[in-house]
């Protein structure tokens, strides 16, 4: 981070930004993808790819609880990504 491709993986859709805002506001949120979709008002199948991208980047994580896949926020990794973006921005726009 933040290569252009990875930036688009992070910020490339309205849904991603809504998911980021949701977890930043609720860092302890631990939810199934269906619950996340309800919270941001988008169908679950519409946000599957966005969630997968955020998992690939390392901002979200998954774990299995009672055979259900649960999504949660990796604040530590997100802060590291934000630091890298900040560093790039300070080098010049």
């Amino acid at each position: 981070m933040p290569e252009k491709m990875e930036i688009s993986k992070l910020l490339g859709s309205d849904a991603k930004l809504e998911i980021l805002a949701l977890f930043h506001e609720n860092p302890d949120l631990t939810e199934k993808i269906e619950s996340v979709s309800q919270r941001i008002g988008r169908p679950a199948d519409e946000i599957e790819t966005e969630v997968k991208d955020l998992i690939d980047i390392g901002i979200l994580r998954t774990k299995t609880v009672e055979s259900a896949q649960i999504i949660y926020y990796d604040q530590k990794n997100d802060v590291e990504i934000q630091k890298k973006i900040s560093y790039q921005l300070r080098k010049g726009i």
Partner: protein
Amino acid sequence: MGIHLSEGLQGAVELRQEAYQLSYTALANPERFDQTLLDCVKDGMVAILGSEVLESLFLSLETYQGLSRYEIPSNIDTFFAALEKAFGSASGKTVGRFIIKLLYARLGLQFDGKTNRLLVDYVIDARRELQSRETHA
């Protein structure tokens, strides 16, 4: 409101609506509108990328574009262009659209979400709409 707001965005809206005690007449005032727009830039950026990124963006805008944070509302086109330069065209537009959605929600305006419209046009429309409401109040 006209658009569904996600919880993250809704939180950012409620936080400020109470503080502003939204008055269209007051917001039609150019200085008040500019302050609202700047608040949306700050709160929108913090909501999606955090305060450190926001401060780095402001610093970079000032250093490399000669644009202070306080000049952003009157140079919003430069700000949107800088977002595209910083994050790439598509992602920069998405970030700008998030800020506009926040602005429209706070002002109680309907955001139509057309991706082919220029973001700066939404700001011009919002300013014009509030001035029109003030005239007809």
